Each structure stands twice: as structure tokens, then as C-alpha cells.
């Protein structure tokens, strides 16, 4: 599933151009993770258009419930939409107006629903306010993809050392138990209380 984080400004002002840009970027990227921002859409030629027919738009208020703490993801609604929207269509989640934490919560719930779907949709587009485009894009990509994180040599070494130390501590815990047994055993021998059952 290609993941597109799209600026709300671009989507609401030039939806066909924004989608055309997303299509082009997705086809050229290896990872299928794309950000469509407003300045890039502005630079698109005038004849770049994308049909809106294949689009299935879901306003995010369908996927949340409001309670006293704020918004909470509605897993049932997400699950129904995940199963009812045909996979060949582009699924567009319009999160315009929602804050970052609500969007992250919804994306986490979305991952859990999509996790067990056998076939994923062709494209998932998240439309968010321009001010939170980058953090929301990160949350979107991390929700569906496990992305590589390259450790430095020092980080690797430190983590490996912690790992080896923890392993040794665990082993000592069991050994200590063993030492107790040995002590009891020696006591039994020294006090001649040890009698082997025949």
C-alpha cells in the first residue's frame, strides 16, 4: 500500500494536481512513502490532472468518537470502512482540522485493523493541515511500514554491551539459586543427614 501524506491546502485548492503529483512520486519512489506539500503542487504544470473517480474519501470524524477526554478512535467504524472500500480504490482520509495526537491515535487503530487484512488498498492518502504535515506523515509511515533505522557503530556497541550484561545477570540469578542448593547439599553431607533412597 502506497502511503501519501498530503497538505490540506493542496488537496482543497488543487485536488486533481495534488493527486497527480502523488501518483507520479509514488511511481518513482522505492518505498511507496510520499509527502505532497503545497509548494510542490504549485510547481506542477497546469495540464497535470488526476481523475477523482477512483477516490474514496472518508472524513476522519467518521473514525472518531468524542468523549470527555477528547477524541477516541472508533475501531468498529474503521474496521467497517476497511472491509467495505474496494482495494483497487484510493482511500483518502481527510483529517483536516484534527490535532496531531488524535491523528496518531487514529493511525495506530488503523494499523491494528489493516494488520489482518489479506489485501491492502492501492493507496492510502492522509490529508492533514500543513502545520502538522511532517509529524503526521511520520506517524502515517510508521503505522503501516516498519522503516529501517540505521544504528551507528557506537549505538550498536552500547546496545550489544547492555544485552550481554543483562544476559549475564539473568544467568547469575539462576546460578545463585543453584548455589543455595549446593550449600544445602553440603550441609546435609556434613551433618550426615544425607541418605540415598535405594
Amino acid at each position, binding site marked *: 500500500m502506497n502511503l501519501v501524506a498530503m497538505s490540506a491546502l493542496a488537496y482543497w485548492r488543487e485536488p486533481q494536481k495534488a493527486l497527480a503529483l502523488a501518483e507520479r512520486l509514488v511511481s518513482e519512489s522505492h518505498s511507496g512513502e510520499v509527502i505532497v506539500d503545497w509548494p510542490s503542487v504549485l510547481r506542477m504544470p497546469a495540464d497535470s490532472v488526476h481523475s477523482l473517480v477512483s477516490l474514496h474519501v472518508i472524513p476522519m470524524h467518521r473514525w472518531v468518537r468524542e468523549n470527555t477526554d477528547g477524541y477516541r478512535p472508533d475501531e468498529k467504524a474503521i474496521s467497517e470502512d476497511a472491509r467495505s472500500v474496494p482495494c483497487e480504490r484510493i482511500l483518502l482520509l481527510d483529517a483536516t482540522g484534527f490535532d496531531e495526537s488524535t491523528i496518531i491515535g487514529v493511525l495506530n487503530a488503523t494499523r491494528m485493523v489493516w494488520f489482518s487484512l489479506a489485501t491492502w488498498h492501492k493507496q492510502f492518502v492522509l490529508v492533514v493541515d500543513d502545520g502538522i504535515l511532517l509529524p503526521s506523515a511520520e506517524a502515517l509511515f510508521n503505522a503501516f511500514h516498519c522503516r529501517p533505522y540505521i544504528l551507528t557503530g557506537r549505538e550498536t556497541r552500547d546496545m550489544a554491551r547492555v544485552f550481554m550484561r*543483562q544476559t549475564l545477570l539473568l544467568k547469575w540469578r539462576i546460578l545463585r539459586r543453584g548455589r543455595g542448593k549446593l550449600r544445602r547439599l553440603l550441609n546435609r553431607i556434613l551433618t550426615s543427614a544425607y541418605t540415598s533412597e535405594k
Partner: protein
Amino acid sequence: MPLWQLVHRKKLSYPSAKRLPELRLDGIPSDSLVLSFRKNPEVRPDKVLRRISAISRIGSAFVASDVTLVGVESDSPVAPILMWDIAHALPVGAVLRVLDDVVDRPWLSRSYYAGALVPVERTSRGVVYCKEAPLPAEAGDLDSWTFGIPVGPEDAIFVNACVKRILELDIPRKEILLCGRPGDNFLYWDKVRIVGEDITAPPVQIARKKNRLAQEASHPNLCLLHDRVFLPRDFGKAVRTFGNAFPLTTFQSLYFDDIFNLVPRRYSDFNVGNRLAGQTIFGAMRNGTASRYAPAVFPVIDATDFAFANPHRYTRNTYPTGSLYIAKKSVWLLCPQNDSLMWTEFEDIEHAERAWEMGIPSRINPFGFSQSMNARPLLSQFGAVRIELRNGSYGMYRPFFDALPLPRKPLIKRTMDRALSELATFARNWAPNVDLPDLSASAIRSYDRIRTIIRLLHGTQLLIRRDDVSRFLKDFERHVVGDQLPYAWHEHMLQQIREKGKHAFHGNAIHDGILREIINQTGQRHGRYVFAKTFYDYFPRRSKMVAVGSLISALLLGFQNHRAFYFPGGWLWRYRMLLGTTPYRDYADAPTMIGKTEGA
């Protein structure tokens, strides 16, 4: 009326006569031999059979044609074993009365006994059976054996050692069957018969292979063993001492983690899963039938409690772990393993439980020990193993010298070259963006291996979709861990990744989730070699050090008698047993002198 009283071995915490109802002797014919755990205050028993446990064979103690068991099945958890022995020891035409039992399904009414033990009278106190025909396990003597080994096409070094030892055994008539074709370096083509080449792998259809071996066997006694099992030199003596008409039987098994025979572990012989009886979920087997051991239920079964069974105890969920079965061909064919289950799919547990349902118990032959030539680190926790104690509770057993820096055998049955290529495959498939400058070092020392694994896990690239994550986890256990991990771990990791995404195996989360088994492996070889240079590393050379190590182990194992193991003899018996089961390096080499043995 001859009265024999049975008394449980004291430390088993099984009921003694004081805690049992009074023995009623009214209505029992005067010439009938009465056996009971109960006591009658007015009648003194003619004989007391003490220390009754699951290793007792009371069938050989008497010759009688009229036997009465009073309350035996109600009073003793080891009754299935005792009743098996008694039913087989009786001559055809004998009468067996089973009285005063309060059980739902009497043991002798089960299908195994149906053709031979016919109920002739039912009274308010019990059932009277007449033995009208010999039971299936009475077929044949103990001089003819078929040894069956399921094998695969990999390196045949362990099969060579296993077959060479079988050729040495003190058995007058024997045949060796291999199910499948061993690797090209197999040495004894003229001594074995190969069957079941049509059985495909992977997945390893181990149950189907064992069933095929049983079908093809030409002798009445079967010994089905995996190619890692090294039988005792005095196998013939052990089975003759134990006696004929045995049910599903196995030997206790040892594995020495070091090359001087100083660190003995109990290894995969006879297990108990006490909580299994409470597992009531059914799923669909591959052949469509409903079962408690269906693939969908594996994680649930995995999460129940397993331990090495105490040889003295018996429950319905005590089972041989599948690496060594000593059974009658007739019994195996009555209750074969389930063909639709593969290797590590609890086929051994399902088989033993089905056998129990039929009336065939599983037990240990204590007169022989086998040694394992290699071991899966998964089956021990930092070198310690969980054991069932005599009183039914659980404890840990750690070898005395486990903490000493002795030269060890390889931890994982994989050569360094292969380990490297497996790691590289994993990196190629799941972490293509990660540079691995020190990959070559990661097959040598634990620390370098851990560094590479941590780097690979952080660099992993995958879709968080069930199928992809499942494939990733399978690749991880195959290419990185080098062992098949529990189904419960697989399910746990699936749920963790579903809930937390990449955070399930990045950063500190690696310590308690995905690397659980790597922690165990590292704990067993901290700062030492994990993989084998060659598989010869598993075979100690004949040396004085091995003899001294065996002597020390024989002395120290005395403290584990009745606890982690049961030894029928003293330190000298143990010393001879250890030397007689050690797979020396010459067993893996080309044959030089096999002595007066008879081939297949």
C-alpha cells in the same frame, strides 16, 4: 486367600494405606490372589510389594490364573501401568476381578483390551474379566528388533554414528530401516534398508515417517529413534531386564554440554504437561477432523506447562518426547501417530494422549540410558532444565559444573559457514539498507553475533501486515536463531508488532520480546563459540579426561537419583552407563572394525 499389599514409594506423596478405605475381602474366591493398596486390620498380607511407582514391573512378580484388584485404579495414579503389567502377565483363560473402583472409564474397559479381556460378570462391586486371548503387546520375544530412523538429506555424520552404534548392539536379530535418503556421506548403505522415499519435506512429516517405519518393520519389536540419539551399548540387556510386553517406552536421556563428560543435562526424553488436560479448545486438523491438537490451537498448547517428567510418576499427560520410542510393532500399528501433524506440532503429546485413551500407557525403561549427540538450546534455560520432582512439584536441575569454563560442544547444530550464509540471507531479505562490515565475525563469538542481530533488527524493513510479519518471524527463527521457536512466542510477537509497530523490536524492547531465545543462547555461551566448526565438534575424542569426567559425573549424579533421573544402580553402574553411551569421535568416522555384528 493369598493377599499381597502394594505400597507406594514413600516420597511420591501418593496415598498410603492409612489414608485409604479399609480393604473388603468378602465375596472374593479363596484361591484368588488379591492385590490392593488398602489394608484390612484383621488380615495380615502374605507379601508386601514396597516402593511401587511408575518404574515398577509387578507383572513378573507372580504367576496366577485368578487375580483380584481391590480399589487399585481409584487408589493409585500409577494404576494404568500396574494394570497393563498384570493384564499382560496373566495366562489365557485367567480371571481378573476389578473391585471397589470409582472411576468413570475403567482402564481395562478401554479399546486396547477389548479383544482379549472379556467382561463375564458385573456386580455392584466391580467387573470380572476373563482373558480369552493374548494381548497385542505379548507378540514376539526380545531377540528380534527393527530400528527405524527418520532421516533427511542433510549431513549424515549423526546418522553414521547412530547406525554404527546399532550395529554394535547385543541383539541377535536386527534390521535397520531409514525413512528417507540420508546425505551423500552416509557410510552404511549395505547395512540398512531405505523406505518412504516418497514422503516429501519440508515440512518434516515426522509422524508419517515413523508410521511408515512401523509398517515396514519385519520384527515384532520396534525402536524408533531420531538420528541424534545414541543408544546404550547394553541395549539388549536393558530391554531384557525390563521384560517383554511393554507399552510405549523410552529411555532416560543425557546430553553432555562439554567434551569431557562433566556437564550432564537431562535432555528431551520423557515429559509431562500437567495442565494439558485443561486445554479444551478444539480446532480443525489438516484432514478436517476436530482436535485439541489442531494448528490453530498450537499457541494455546504451547503456553501450558511442560517439564521433564519424573520417572516414578505417571499421569495421562506424561509422554515420550518422540526422539526414542521403544514399542511393539503390534501396539504401534494399533495406535499410530497422527499423519497430519508435522515435526514440533505436538505430535508426540497427541499420540501419547490417544494411546492413553485406548489403554496404552507411556513409561520409562530405567535400565538403559541414551545420550543425545546434539541438543537444542531452546530446551534449557541458561543451561538449567525444569523437572518434575518426586512429590509432583517442579524444580530446576542445573549440572554441578555448568558455571565452569570448560571446553563446550557447539550450541547450535549449524556450521559457521552456514550460519554466515543464513545471516546474509536474512539481511538480504529484510534489511537491504544495512551495511554489515563485521558480518564475517558474527558467526564466531556471541558478542559479534549480537551486534549484527541488533543492527539487522533495527534496519528491518517490512509491511506491518499479518502475512508479512509472520513470514519475517519465521525467517528470523530460521536464519538468525537457528531453531524452531515456540508457537506462543510467534503469536506474542505478532500481537506486539500489531500493537506497537516497529517499537516492538527497536530499542530496549528487543530484550524481552524478539530476542528472548537469543538471550537464552547467549547465556549458555557467553563470549564463546555458538556454532560448530565442523559437526565433529559434537563427538569427544577417547581420552583419559573423558574417563575422569565420566567418573566425576557418575559420582555427582548420585545426588540427582530419584530427582532429575532414576538410576537402578550405584556409582559404578552410572560410570559404565556414561562410558557406554558416549558418542566418541570414531563413531562418526568411516567404519574400521564393527566386530561380530549382523547387518540389515
